[in-house]
């Protein structure tokens, strides 16, 4: 690549921003008895290092599951173990059983932050760079601008380097998966995606599009010939990678069940805290959580999720294309977020929405700064406000088809532009209000509920929007084929 140095610069900027954000405070710093996610990660290192594999997910005198018990899939546990070995080498106090609870020091913070940076550097960043290089039909400049925007994305940086988590690992693996699948290295892609699921169960949000896309590919090749071979190969890869990850837990049935129970805590209820999904927003009007019994809630959320996923997935099976695949990934993740059971606010990784969380961690300054940086990067590289054309919004085919029925409908791109501006402005206003104003005494949660409500509306809009794109795009593609 001729512009390799610009790409290097972009990566270095991303890394610098990551590290500078990590100099700030982390979640639950100096807040006993529970501390925060930082302590959770440290505690998992302690558990995995000191206890045998069989006891990792079980409650015992050495492993109090009420205190940050391990509730992520095995790969996270292995990662913690690996970090623990390094920690042992540097300072055994950091992971001593029982005594290290709530351990905090500058050196330890440095160590933990470094582990995040290294994981990011090894998995996520190469994936982003490669993904942007593999994008087709755009100029080198656009590729670099794309990489800059993805690397500066504030949600991920703030949660990983401010709040403290390892999202970049699972997202990185998923991105490797996307990369592999869209470059036709289906086996490697599905292997990477299996690793992603085994690192964080949240990646299940993305699993349906993967499944549908690969299935669609097999159908396309013909189920009786090559397609079948591919299907078998894929199935073997997935099963093998899962078995490999779960090997220590497959020895006893009880082990597997316990891990699954830890991963999917069904008994926690429809939602916790303030999450911008349908259920939480609907809760303002009607207290579903109290009215309906739990298993009905579960079934209801499942049905809604499934129904909202269905059209896009069917489309993908029938007409697998890598463009459609990417859109389906987004829309599926959105519908999972909106309709599914027990969602975390962190899983959407949107800054304005995590603001209360970040405020609690004293991360206001970095969050404002990184968000602005991201906006500037996006604005200057894509100038969204200037030339929003239907072409760029991918809505051309839709508006053409709508126009045939409604001749007066010609302001689509303008409407979307305004909608976008309005939603950005409301979000900014709400953010400002949350930061500066004290809520009225009667309604202490007023702002966070408002934020939830507005973002929920936004997400719904995006869900519809992406579904429209997916639906009409393929038709257009077929038309083009007919013409040619």
């Amino acid at each position, binding site marked *: 690549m001729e512009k390799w140095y610009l790409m290097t610069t972009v990566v270095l900027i991303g890394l610098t921003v990551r*590290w500078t954000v990590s*100099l700030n405070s982390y979640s639950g710093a100096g807040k006993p008895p529970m501390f925060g996610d930082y302590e959770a990660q440290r505690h998992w290192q302690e558990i995995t290092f000191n206890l045998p594999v069989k006891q990792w997910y079980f409650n015992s005198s050495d492993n109090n599951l009420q205190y940050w018990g391990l509730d992520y899939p095995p790969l996270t546990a292995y990662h913690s173990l690996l970090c623990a070995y390094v920690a042992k080498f540097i300072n055994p106090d950091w992971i001593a059983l029982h005594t290290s609870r709530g351990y905090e020091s500058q*050196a330890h913070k440095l160590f933990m932050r470094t582990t995040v940076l290294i994981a990011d550097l090894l998995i996520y960043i190469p994936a982003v760079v490669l993904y942007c290089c593999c994008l087709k039909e755009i100029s080198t400049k656009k590729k670099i601008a794309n990489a800059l925007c993805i690397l500066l994305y504030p949600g991920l940086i703030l949660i990983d380097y401010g709040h403290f988590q390892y999202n970049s690992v699972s997202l990185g693996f998923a991105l490797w998966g996307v990369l592999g699948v869209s470059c036709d290295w289906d086996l490697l892609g599905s292997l990477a995606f299996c690793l992603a699921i085994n690192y964080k169960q949240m990646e299940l949000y993305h699993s349906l599009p993967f499944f549908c896309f690969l299935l669609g590919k097999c159908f396309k090749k013909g189920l009786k010939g090559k397609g079948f071979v591919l299907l078998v190969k894929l199935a073997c890869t997935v099963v093998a990678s899962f078995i490999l990850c779960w090997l220590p837990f497959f020895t006893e049935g009880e082990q597997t069940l316990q891990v699954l129970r830890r991963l999917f805590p069904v008994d926690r209820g429809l939602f916790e805290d303030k999450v911008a999904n349908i259920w939480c927003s609907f809760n303002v009007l009607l207290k579903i959580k109290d009215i309906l019994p739990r298993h009905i809630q579960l079934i209801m959320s499942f049905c809604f999720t499934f129904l909202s996923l269905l059209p896009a997935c069917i489309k993908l099976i029938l007409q697998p294309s890598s463009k459609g695949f990417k859109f389906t990934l987004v829309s599926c993740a959105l519908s999972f977020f909106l309709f599914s059971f027990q969602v975390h606010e962190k899983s959407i990784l949107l800054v304005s929405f995590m603001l209360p969380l970040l405020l609690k961690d004293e991360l206001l300054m970095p969050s404002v700064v990184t968000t602005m940086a991201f906006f500037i990067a996006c604005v200057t590289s894509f100038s969204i*406000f*200037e030339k929003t054309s239907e072409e760029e919004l991918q809505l051309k085919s839709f508006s053409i088809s709508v126009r045939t029925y409604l001749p007066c409908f010609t302001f689509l791109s303008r409407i979307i532009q305004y909608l976008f501006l309005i939603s950005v402005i409301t979000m900014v206003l709400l953010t400002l209000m949350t930061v500066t104003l004290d809520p009225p005494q009667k309604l202490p949660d007023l702002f966070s509920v408002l934020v939830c409500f507005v973002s929920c509306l936004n997400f719904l809009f995006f869900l519809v929007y992406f579904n429209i794109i997916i639906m009409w795009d393929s038709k257009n593609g077929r038309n083009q084929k007919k013409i040619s």
Partner: protein
Amino acid sequence: MAALTIAAGTGNWFSALALGVTLLKCLLIPTYHSTDFEVHRNWLAITHSLPISQWYYEATSEWTLDYPPFFAWFEYILSHVAKYFDQEMLNVHNLNYSSSRTLLFQRFSVIFTDTLFVYAVHECCKCIGGKKVGKELTEKPKFILSVLLLWNFGLLIVDHIHFQYNGFLFGLMLLSIARLFQRQGLPILPRLVLNSWGQAIFPPWLTKVLGLQKRHMEGAFLFAVLLHFKHIYLYVAPAYGVYLLRSYCFTANRPDGSIRWNSFSFVRVISLGLVVFLISALSLGPFLALNQLPQVFSRLFPFKRGLCHAYWAPNFWALYNALDKVLSVIGLKLKFLDPNKIPKASMTSGLVQQFQHTVLPSVTPLATLICTLIAILPSIFCLWFKPQGPRGFLRCLILCALSSFMFGWHVHEKAILLAILPMSLLSVGKAGDASVFLILTTTGHYSLFPLLFTAPELPIKILLMLLFTIYSISSLKTLFRKEKPLFNWMETFYLLGLGPLEVCCEFVFPLTSWKLKYPFIPLLLTSVYCALGITYAWFKLYVSVLIDPPIGKTKKQ
């Protein structure tokens, strides 16, 4: 948001670059800060709570006010904003006070005053045309120049991590340089008149008096103000003086480029002198009235300090000291020297102190002054006898800065910025200058590494350094890709050597047993290695200036 929409509306890359770096500066707020932070807090307190008569006498803190009066006034103005942040930081007796609000205020004051720097860079980019190569934005000299200046590694770490106010001071300097480059010098109204009625209506003497050619007066004014902010800029004053005298006070040249003595303009000399005099009177006048001038000067020029700072700045004296050490070790081995006679004080032990050389003769302040003058002289002669317009002046200015860095008394490693920033302006113009610039910048920036020695800042300095170095080398290589390569094998080898040096000093050395016995070795290695590169760059630049053919023949006033 307003700034954002401006950036978006015009698609302006410059504001995006400036905003981007400003945001990065905001992210650097929680990083380590040096004692300079306390120095400036103390000055805030002094100027806020004491009358002028005591500013240069106050000595509660060891960090007494040792900048010229304009800087004191600057702190005075800042202190009136500071009182809304935290009243406590304005108490003279509140030593080493640093609340989170104080930190926020001080950091933001640096970031905010940097807007002057941004404006100056903007002006510089307007008037300095470089080589025109590609159509693409990232290959335009203006774009490269503004990145080199705005994202300058040295300025970022010295101002926004280590903590100092160099940004707006360099802004003043760059602005005054830009004014010397700019051609249209009139305020808007006369320019309009001129444009509408044609040039003929103004007699030549009027245009000369008004200084229509270039904005020399404004440049001189800005530089005089700058001198009264921080007196380190005295190093480059000879270049200003000679240039203004030669190219402004003498209004014409002979056809062969030499001076035409009868073209001397008394009006211009007097107006220049008046500007400088008025500024000095404004700055030093109050202290003259209070009869405190000797005290002020004794604070400004403390000659009691040693030849070198605790960490040797990478200049000629670092090489001299190192040679002395080597000779003394060899002497001891071969029994030429008596071990009992050797002074015990080691120069890198961390204290600013007098140091006696064991083998080579000791250096006095006077000797360094003479060396500096000798080193500056050729460039000054060059500026006088073959003036090459503003570009020649810029070269002379850089040579002055570099020479005084090479031979000055008690030079700080930070002073290298005085040469690096103006050099950026030259680097986009000619391949030879670009090559010198890259060597100078890379070594100079690397020599700033010991300023930040804490572990959390280690990744920041390495990442930022890589960012700047990779960008500057590859963008200038792209700019000059049609000419011969920027580096020969020796230079490439030298620059690549910085990598292993860093690994040795920061990663390998702390693990070895020498860490306790010879703690000064990394600093010594760094400063000697960098001194080689900077000396080389200085030499190369000097040679290129001296052998360059004069272009004065074509230049006419």
